[in-house]
């Protein structure tokens, strides 16, 4: 049973990390990264490393998405101010 829950957590981490790479838009990527932080904390707990899980939770669930979203917002403001620059051609939705 202990191995089963480890396998479940590993599969979740693998799927979530693959999705975080595959999603192209940074805003949606930050949402996937927040979930990845939570899933990684669960994996660390299952592997009997709750101290690592605690720091992963503290950083991954709120701090990483906050930094990413603030960066995206700043880049967009700059792109709106200079709409003929190379960054201005990207649409609001982003991605190809």
């Amino acid at each position: 049973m202990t191995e089963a829950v480890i396998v479940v957590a590993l599969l979740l981490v693998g799927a979530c990390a693959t999705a975080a790479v595959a999603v192209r838009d940074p805003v949606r990527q930050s949402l996937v990264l927040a979930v990845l932080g939570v899933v990684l904390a669960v994996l660390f707990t299952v592997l009997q490393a709750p101290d690592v899980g605690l720091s992963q939770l503290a950083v991954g669930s709120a701090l990483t998405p906050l930094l990413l979203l603030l960066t995206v917002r700043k880049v967009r403001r700059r792109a709106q101010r200079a709409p003929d620059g190379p960054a201005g051609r990207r649409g609001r939705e982003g991605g190809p």
Partner: protein
Amino acid sequence: MNGWILAAAVVLAAGLGATLRGVVTGPLRRRAAAQNLSTALACPALLLLAQGYARPAYVDLALVLAVLGPVGTLVFARLLADELADDPPHARTATFTAAALGAAVVVAVSVATGPGRALVKLLVIGALLVGGNLVASRALAGGMQEGRRD
């Protein structure tokens, strides 16, 4: 080995698997709602794991997640307010299902713990979990509109 870890594995596989699918596909509002639900479902799983491993110290992880999960959702609700304003996420059924699951897990673990200081700690975690997620999903559904400045 024991039922607690089996229950945690089921919650992780079904609940977090479903939220992972929700956060990867679909429009932005569905992804934001799924991110909120992922913290609401991981916290009961951590409580079940702490009970299953018979390590009361592992409950601290659930406490930290119950505090920081709604904070992360509020970050998204504040910074994505423009994108979510036209089409706010209303995942009422899923939110109440997750809240009911959290409350049921807290009650089950509390019954297994018995009276004492650990019981009070579990009840504090349960109140933070249910209340925090209801507040976070309400903010996601449009409660941050008046705080918008731009």
